[in-house]
């Protein structure tokens, strides 16, 4: 072997999944996990395996599809981000009790920071809650290696096993060793056994103690058989500090010690945080007076120790209780634990320069030409006094122009709309409410909220922002498109209008969001219908995502300085990167670096100051 290529951490995990002989892989995209499944499909195509690779409509579906496929004796896996595991929590809790047949791997990617999530939760904690073993990789290569061990462990004890890569492993790029596919030659062979596959209370009473016994055995294995993931890097001589570290924190500590050329700090790496090899950790603690624990993001290692009184960690707040453990944070923590300080760096000149040059970090924004921006503009124009519950996707960025009033989680735009409707209705008030949701999120968890609203007769407008893609996570397919990941594997498109009508909605209109006048009219009409008939009305705003780079008509635009009065209406309500406000001139301007010539802003300016440049329309 020895064939090394540079892979993203997520691709390394995918490669491990294919090489380990996994035959069914199901996932729902979510940062930082999204690149795993497409890479599973790519490697499966390249290596010619028969692995079924599918985007599921949500994580619960992915989990159940993959878990059940493992009942036949095959290796399977379900892949998601940490908040996706919340959606899949129900099957996770039950399947943990099962005596599985084939290996079943759960990959749950965490997002300490967070960078792209609504929580900073720790999937290792969920593994502890569900009583399933968990591996926590420190690098791309280790993540790939752990996939094999996770499958083996799952088959040794007939239980699900979790791999928890955090974002810096998912999105690290590293040279990784490639291997070949393990051909397990298994045929699906489901052996009917009610005792084993039906989670009746009577069975759980037997299975729960059995699960506890399995965990005890896994803990013993982790103490002794997994030295490649759990090991000590000892100090030379007496250690001034002992650091217990999991995940990428271990890698950061090792780089720091090397850069500092320090050998008076010993490090215990823990790659299997649950169930914790307690004896190994206690032995390390006993040999060190001064112990620092670095883990992301909850004190999972600490919580499993009967005595944590001497530890400096997340538990007692020595390590901040929230936030990513960046190298700078770890540097400070090690120095604090040692009672040392670094010479203060004088960065006052840089700070002054940054201030004078007005350099600020740029928050993410909807792309230039994004159809959501136009949809939001029409929504606000039609119903300026509306309440706008929204959802999880690119359109959450509509918060920049205050077109998003609430988000909770996937699918909550609809249920929040129901909540607002009921709260105002009990006062006898008709409060306009517009819920916005994307196509993929609608299929993920929106449909149930719609059925609930039809059944209970909740009056609001549901705007489905159908951009024909799962955009935020990088452009994955979903039922509204119908494509599948593996070559030659055909899917089928599911028609959103048909689903909406099937849920019992009578007002369904499809509009082109770039025509903001027309869509504003339809928004008004939809609210009138909803209010008068006491039922949800649905507007589908359909225009392909700009990331798909489909050809569309271009309109070169300019701001007419004679007409622009500097009112900032376009900045506040349209907020396009291609149409910034020139503070010096006191007027809006077109920034050619970003403008994609969609021409929508022409409809936005109340003073007609944004004009098409004549003769250049294509």
């Amino acid at each position, binding site marked *: 072997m020895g064939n090394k290529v540079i892979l993203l951490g997520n691709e390394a995990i995918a490669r491990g999944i294919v090489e380990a002989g996994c035959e069914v892989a199901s996932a729902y995209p979510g*940062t930082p996990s999204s690149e795993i499944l497409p890479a599973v499909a790519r490697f499966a195509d390249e290596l010619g395996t028969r692995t079924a690779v599918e985007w599921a409509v949500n994580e619960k579906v992915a989990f159940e599809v993959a878990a059940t496929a493992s009942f036949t004796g095959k290796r399977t896996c379900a892949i998601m981000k940490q908040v996706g595991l919340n959606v899949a929590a129900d099957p996770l809790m039950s399947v943990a009790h099962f005596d599985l047949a084939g290996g079943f791997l759960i990959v749950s990617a965490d997002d300490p920071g967070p960078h*792209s999530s609504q929580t900073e939760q720790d999937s290792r904690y969920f593994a502890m809650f569900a009583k399933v073993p968990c591996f926590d990789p420190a690098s791309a290569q280790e993540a790939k290696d752990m996939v094999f061990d996770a499958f083996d462990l799952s088959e040794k004890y007939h239980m699900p096993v979790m791999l928890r890569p955090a974002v810096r492993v998912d999105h690290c790029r590293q040279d990784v060793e490639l291997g070949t596919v393990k051909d397990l030659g298994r045929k699906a062979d489901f052996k009917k056994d009610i005792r084993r596959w039906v989670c009746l209370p009577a069975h759980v009473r037997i299975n729960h103690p059995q699960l506890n016994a399995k965990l005890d055995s896994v803990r013993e294995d982790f103490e002794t058989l997994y030295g490649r993931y759990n090991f000590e890097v000892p100090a030379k001589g007496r250690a001034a500090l002992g650091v217990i570290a999991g995940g*990428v924190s271990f890698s950061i500590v090792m780089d720091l010690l090397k850069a500092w050329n320090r050998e008076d700090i010993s490090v215990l790496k823990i790659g299997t945080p649950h169930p914790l090899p307690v004896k190994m950790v206690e032995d390390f603690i006993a040999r060190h007076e001064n112990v620092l624990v670095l883990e992301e993001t909850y004190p999972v290692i600490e919580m499993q120790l009967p005595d944590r009184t001497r530890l400096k960690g997340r538990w007692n707040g020595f390590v901040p209780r929230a936030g990513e453990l960046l190298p700078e944070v770890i540097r400070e923590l090690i120095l604090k634990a040692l009672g040392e300080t670094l010479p203060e760096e004088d960065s006052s000149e840089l700070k002054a320069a940054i201030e004078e040059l007005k350099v600020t970090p740029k928050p*993410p924004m909807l*792309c230039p030409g994004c159809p959501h921006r136009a949809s939001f503009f029409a929504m606000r124009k039609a119903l300026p006094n509306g309440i706008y519950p929204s959802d999880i996707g690119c359109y959450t960025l509509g918060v920049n122009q205050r077109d998003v009033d609430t988000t909770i989680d996937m699918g909550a735009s609809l249920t929040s709309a129901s909540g607002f409707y009921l709260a105002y209705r009990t006062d006898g008030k008709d409060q306009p409410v517009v819920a916005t949701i994307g196509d993929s999120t609608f299929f993920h968890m929106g449909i149930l909220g719609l059925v609930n609203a039809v059944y209970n007769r909740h009056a609001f407008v549901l705007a489905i922002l159908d951009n024909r893609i799962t955009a935020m996570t990088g452009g994955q397919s979903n039922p509204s498109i119908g494509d599948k990941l593996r070559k030659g594997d055909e899917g089928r498109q599911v028609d959103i209008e048909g689903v909406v009508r099937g849920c019992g909605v009578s007002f369904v209109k499809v509009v082109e969001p770039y025509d903001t006048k027309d869509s504003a009219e339809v928004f008004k009409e939809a609210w009138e219908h909803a209010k008068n008939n006491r039922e949800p009305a649905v507007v589908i705003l359909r225009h392909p995502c700009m990331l798909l780079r489909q050809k569309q008509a271009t309109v070169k635009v300019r701001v007419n300085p004679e007409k622009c009065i500097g009112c900032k209406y376009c900045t506040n309500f349209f907020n396009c990167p291609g149409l910034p406000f020139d503070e010096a001139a006191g007027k809006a301007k077109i920034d050619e670096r970003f403008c994609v010539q969609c021409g929508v802003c022409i409809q936005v300016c109340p003073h007609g100051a944004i004009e098409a440049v004549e003769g250049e329309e294509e």
Partner: protein
Amino acid sequence: MQYVIVGLGGQGILFTSRVLGHIAVSRGERVMGSEVHGMAQRGGSVISHFKVGQYESPLVLTGSADLLIAFDQGEGIRNLHFLRPGAKAILNLHDPAALENVHLKKYATGRGLEISGIPGYRILSEKMNGRFLFMNVLMLGAMCGIGAGNVSIDEIRAAVGTLAPEKHRADNLKAVELGYEYFRGN
């Protein structure tokens, strides 16, 4: 060798570290880097860390980078603190006056930093019909132009030639030269 590459989401930053990684691996060196995917990619500030050599972690500690490549001058200035004393930076400038800022000059002198700028947008407007998606390869050419990055222009040419999609290969190579010539041309 530790690189920090910064810019705005959508500027094609990831391709830059792919090129650098390709070169390092073909030399038999180990690589480690960290990228930004997801929400932050939507036009917001993005940062890529890239390390060549015996490193364990993908992140560059502030004050230790050997080179900063900035696709946006604001992002470049904001991230100068990543550089170790004596390191270099190459910035894509849309407002060259920024480099004349007194405080910035003092900071650079105090730490022995060598900050170079290239008007990338102007060059691509004039020479490549305003196709700014070639900024990433232009910056790689510029990096060699200022003699930074520990790779040769020939290695960049070869790696870009290998990694760029067939359809855009010639344009990518042209942009590499535009960046290089800005500093090396006559």
